[in-house]
C-alpha cells in the first residue's frame, strides 16, 4: 500500500512539473508575442503617419501651378492644340495602299499588285493557288 501511494505521488509531481513547465513556456511565448505585437503596431502607426505626411507632400509638390512652372523651365511641351487632335479617317493612305479604302474597292477590284512580306503579291497569289 505504501508503494502505490508513493507511485501516485511521484506521478502527480511529474504531472505538476510538466504542466508548470508548459505553463511558463506558454507565458513567455505570449509575452514575446505581445512585445512583437507592440512593435508591429508601433511601426504601423509610424508608417501611417509617414503616409499622411508623404501624401500631403505629394499633393503639395503636384500643385498644378508648380508643375506648370517646372514644365516651362525644363520642358518644351505645351498643352495639346486642336491641330494635334484628329480621327483615324483623317489619315490618308499611302500611295498604292488605297485597296482598303471603302470607296476605292468597288471601283477598282483588280488593283495594282500590293507587295506582301516574302515577295508575294496580292495579284499573283490566286494564280499561284490554281496551279
Amino acid at each position: 500500500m505504501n508503494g502505490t501511494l508513493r507511485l501516485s505521488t511521484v506521478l502527480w509531481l511529474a504531472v505538476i512539473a510538466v504542466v508548470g513547465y508548459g505553463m511558463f513556456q506558454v507565458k513567455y511565448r505570449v509575452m514575446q508575442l505581445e512585445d512583437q505585437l507592440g512593435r508591429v503596431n508601433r511601426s504601423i502607426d509610424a508608417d501611417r503617419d509617414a503616409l499622411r505626411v508623404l501624401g500631403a507632400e505629394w499633393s503639395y509638390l503636384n500643385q498644378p501651378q508648380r508643375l506648370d512652372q517646372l514644365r516651362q523651365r525644363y520642358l518644351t511641351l505645351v498643352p495639346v492644340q486642336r491641330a494635334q487632335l484628329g480621327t483615324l479617317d483623317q489619315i490618308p493612305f499611302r500611295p498604292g495602299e488605297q485597296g482598303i479604302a471603302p470607296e476605292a474597292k468597288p471601283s477598282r477590284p483588280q488593283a495594282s499588285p500590293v507587295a506582301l512580306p516574302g515577295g508575294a503579291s496580292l495579284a499573283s497569289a490566286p494564280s499561284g493557288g490554281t496551279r
Partner: protein
Amino acid sequence: MKPDFDPRENPCRPRHFKPAPCGPLPAEGPAKQTLETSRTRLVLLGALFCLAFAAIGLRLVDVTVLKDQGPRFARAHLRPHLDHARADILDRNGVKLATTLETPSLFANPKLVQGAAEAAAKLAAVLPGLDRQDLEAALSNKERSFVWIKRNLTPEQQFGVNRLGIPGLFFQTEQRRLYPQGSLTAHVVGFADVDNNGLQGVERGLDDELKTGDGPVTLSIDLRLQYILKEEVTRQIESFSAKGGMGMIADVETGEILAMVSLPDFDPNDRAAVDSDATFNRATLGTYEMGSVFKIFNTAMALDSHVTTLNGGYDASHPLQVGRFTIHDDHAKNRWLSVPEIFIYSSNIGSARMAVDAGIDRQRDFLGRLGLLRAPSLELPEIGEPHYPRDWRLVNTMTIAFGHGMSVSPLQMVTGVSAVVNGGILHRATLLRHPDGYRPEGVRVMSEQTSDDMRRLLRLVVEKGTGKFAAAPGYLVGGKTGTAEKVDGKGYAHKELLSSFVAAFPMNQPRYVIMVSIDEPHPNGHSAGEATGGWVAAPAVSRIVQRMAPIEGIPPVDEDSPEIRRSLVVQSAETPGRKFAAN
C-alpha cells in the same frame, strides 16, 4: 450493534493516547446542544465551500470554453489614431485638398538647458526663421520651465533638432489642418480653426461629416480644371485692371461643380493674412444683377410658354418708354428684330417686349421653377439669397427680361443655364462627387423643344452675335454675353460694370456650362474702348474650352459638317430661307 464511532478503532490515534472511554451520548443537556450547534455549523460551512468551488468551476468553464477572448488584447497597443482625426478632403481624382497631420512642436525647459548660447546657435542653424538672440534670451531665462521654441515643425526639422542632442528640449505633437493646394481651392474648401472647427467653405458646410472622420470626403472639383479656370480668370482681371472676378464650370447632366474660383483669394494655410474681401465667395455668396445673360431665361420662358417662336419677332426700332425709364439697346439696330436676332444682338427693347407679351405671372413662375427666387442649396455655408421685387410690376418684368432689377448668384445662373441646355431638366448643384455613371433625377422645368431651340440660339450668339470671342475652333461653344451696370447707392454707375459670359459646350450635346464674370473691368488697349462681357469674359471662355477639352476627352469636330449644321441651324423669319448659321 457496532457503535457509530469508537475512538479506539481510529488507526491514526497516537499510540500513547488513551481516551477516556466515552459514555453514551447525553440525551439531554448543554453537551448535546453544543454538539448539534457544531454539526449545523459544519454543514453550513461545507455547503458554503461547495458553492464557492461550484462558482469557480462554472466561471472556469465560462472563461475557457464559452467565451473565446483570445484576440481581444491584439488591438490594445494601437493608440487612438489620426484616422479618427478630421477627415481629408479630396478632389474628384483623389488629390488631397485638405488633410490633418500630427506635427511636432518644439518647446524647451530652460532650467535643464546648459550652455544657452551654444544651444541657441545650433537651433538657429537647424530652424530657419528663428532669431538667435531671441532664442538665447529665452533659453537663458532660468525662471521659467516652459518656452515654445517653434510650433509645427516639419519631419526634417524634427530630425535635425534630435540630431543636435541638446538636453532640455522636448516635442509635443499637435494636430494641424493643412491645405496642400493653398489658395487654388480656397473658397471651395475653406478652412478650419486651430481647434479643428470648420469656419468656411466645405470645412464648415460638412463639418459634422468631417469630424466623425468616416473616410475622406471626395468633392466634385477637378483640380486641373480649377487651375485652368483660375489662370484664365486671373489673366482677364489683370488685363482689364479689374477689381475681382469669378469663374465656374459645372456638369450639366449631374449638377456637379467641377471648378469654382472667386478672386481675389487667399491662402488658407496662412490665415493671419486673410482679409474679408478675399474670403468673400463671389460665386455663391455674391448676388448680382447679371445683365444680358438673363436673356437666356427670358427667351426660354417666351419660347416655352409659346408666346412666340423662333420665327416670331418684335419691334425694336425706337427706345421703349416705361414711366420714367427708357429702355435702350446697346447694339441698336433700330428696326424690327426676329427672336434669334433679339437674342444674338442682345436687344433690351425686344427682350422687354417679349417679357411683356408673356406677362408678369408667367415670368415669375418660370424663374421660380429654375430656382432663381430662393436661396440655392449647396455644401457651403456661403449662400447668397436672391433679390427680386416683392411687388412685381410690369416695369420689373421689363427690366428683369434683360437682367436688371433682380440679382442672383452666379451659382444660380449656372444651375439655371444647365437646365436650359441639357434638355430641360433642373439638377441640384452639388460639390460632392457622384459615383461614376450616376445620373441624378432632376425636375423638368421646360420642354425638350425649348431646350433644343435655346442651344441653337446660344450657338448663334458665338457664331454671329455678341459672343464671337468665345469661339474655340472645333469645340462648338455657345453662350450669351452680359454686361451689367453695378448699382451704387442711388442708381446705376455707368462706368462700373460686371461683365460676364455664360457658355455651354459642345453645343450639339452640351456637357459643360462655363461662367466667367469680371468685376469692374476697365477697357484696355486691345479692347476698342470696350469692357463688355463679349470683350472681357468671352475670350477667357474660349481659352478655357480649348484647354479643358483635351483633358476631358472631347474630340474636336468639323463645325461645317452637314450633320452639325443641321443640329444647330436657325431658320430666320426676317429673311425667309436664309440660314443664320451659314458663314
